[in-house]
């Protein structure tokens, strides 16, 4: 089965063509364009305009790169939520248009579940606890009783937002994560910051405020280092708690922040200390991507899910545990 997937819940527009062959995930193409705000944070309308503008050419590129013809595609998947309303609506409209025009079945996919499924497919993880760490999302997700449930999450801002806001304050352009990672490597001194874990939840806004108030007195390298160590240790701790609680022995990373090598190192160490396995897909499948949507759409379709156009209304606050996982 061959599926076309369109992702567009936030900054990134991604379009991919994926084939399921011999039970394996084969990615035929995975193209993307990222909206970068001129200044400040993301403007949902501008991001949606960006997606609308790039959709036709990106679609063309993705199909060309995959070397397939439209008629060979069996299914149209799109990110139905959670995400920014205007972005979701733009992508949904495109998906509906393609589905109608070429008479293909359509499938709205939960963005967070898609991160988890592509990670499993590409790394060989079977029953992981996922740490999903991106700009707006920071969640610990795992399968329990046929649903992907959220065991822990941020109580305020996402880890990526925290890093970006810190970056903006010290004059680093968006997205600040990779720059902060480089600075942090040169940091030597740990400057204490509030460590905020509540049960299996975390919060970052207090740490951010403290870090911002200290920038003047400390080197930015030490600050970046301390910020990373504090935030990432918190993420490892709540992930470990979920693993212990669920008695699961695999940890999987997803989300753009998970491409940070220090976060990977911390999570790997945590897994090793518990005798658990650590999995992380390559960077292009950590960040938002079309392949994860295309792949999850196939899993859902094969498990018997069907959607009519009437079912494709976007769901800004779509929760992972609203979907029954019939395919796992």
């Amino acid at each position, binding site marked *: 089965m061959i599926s076309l997937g369109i992702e567009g819940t936030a900054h990134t527009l991604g379009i991919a063509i994926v084939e399921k062959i011999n039970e394996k995930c084969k990615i035929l193409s995975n193209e993307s364009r990222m909206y970068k705000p001129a200044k400040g944070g993301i403007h949902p309308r501008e991001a949606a305009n960006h997606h609308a503008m790039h959709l036709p050419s990106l679609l063309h590129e993705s199909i060309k790169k995959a070397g397939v013809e439209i008629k060979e595609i069996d299914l149209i998947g799109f990110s139905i939520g959670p995400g920014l309303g205007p972005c979701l609506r733009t992508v949904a409209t495109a998906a509906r248009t393609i589905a109608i025009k070429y008479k293909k079945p359509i499938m709205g996919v939960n963005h967070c579940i898609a991160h988890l499924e592509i990670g499993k497919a590409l790394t060989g993880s079977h029953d992981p606890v996922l740490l999903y760490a991106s700009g707006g999302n920071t969640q610990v997700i795992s399968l*329990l009783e046929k649903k992907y*449930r*959220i*065991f822990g999450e941020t109580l305020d801002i996402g880890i990526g937002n925290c890093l970006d806001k810190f970056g903006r304050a010290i004059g680093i352009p968006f997205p600040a994560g990779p720059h902060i990672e480089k600075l942090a490597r040169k940091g030597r001194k*740990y400057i*204490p910051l509030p*460590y905020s874990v*509540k*049960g*299996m939840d975390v919060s970052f806004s207090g740490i951010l405020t403290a870090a911002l108030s200290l920038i003047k007195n400390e080197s930015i390298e030490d600050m970046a280092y301390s910020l990373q*160590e*504090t935030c990432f*240790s918190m993420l*490892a*701790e709540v992930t*470990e*708690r979920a*693993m*212990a*609680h*669920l008695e699961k022995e695999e940890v999987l990373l997803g989300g753009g922040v998970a491409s940070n090598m220090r976060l990977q190192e*911390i*999570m790997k*160490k*945590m897994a090793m*200390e518990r005798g658990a396995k650590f999995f992380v897909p390559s960077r292009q499948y950590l960040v938002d991507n079309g392949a994860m949507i295309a792949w999850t759409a196939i899993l859902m379709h094969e498990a018997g899910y069907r959607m009519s156009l009437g079912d494709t209304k976007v769901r800004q606050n779509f*929760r992972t*545990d609203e979907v029954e996982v019939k395919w796992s």
Partner: protein
Amino acid sequence: MELIKRGAEAKIYRAKWMGKEVVIKRRVRKGYRIKELDEEIRRRRTKEEAFLMAETRRAGVSVPIIYYIDTVKMEIVMEYIGGKRIKDFIDDENEETQKKICRMIGESVAKMHSHGIIHGDLTTSNMILADKLYFIDFGLGMKSFENEARGVDMHLLMEAFNAAHRNEKLFKWVFEAYGENFDEADEVKRKIDEIIKRGRYMRRVS
């Protein structure tokens, strides 16, 4: 020293200490955290847990006596409570006894909450019945007078009863006694309902 439990954060041992039967709760080093951070966190939590146990005693609720706090080994040495965990026997009791125990639980939690103590992990495996009803495991606890925090605490207890125990009247009795002993119980009840509606999976309780 005999290891009785290995949690995500701490190891629990049973041991003899200065001639006494004790339980040692040791927070283990996490190699993924840098040393400065790791030691600070473990030291703070060890102190906080001991502090919360002391506060709970002051509120009139039984907890194991703390014999010793070691902030280098990150250990709490406490009295061994030779009793039975509520979780392990309450289902086998007759209704009259069940009701008595549940009322004790409700009354104790009311005392904690009215003194600003949030236990943080109110399950029937963290309550031991010996000569009195004892509460253990304050590792996730905190000080708070917010009804939201109290609601989260009680919601977990409700889930614990509903998931692990057969008689659905148990939590009703707990809450009855809680209400009779705590003025803000109605407000807490509203918070519990809100939390249920929010629908986020909180903890699987076993």
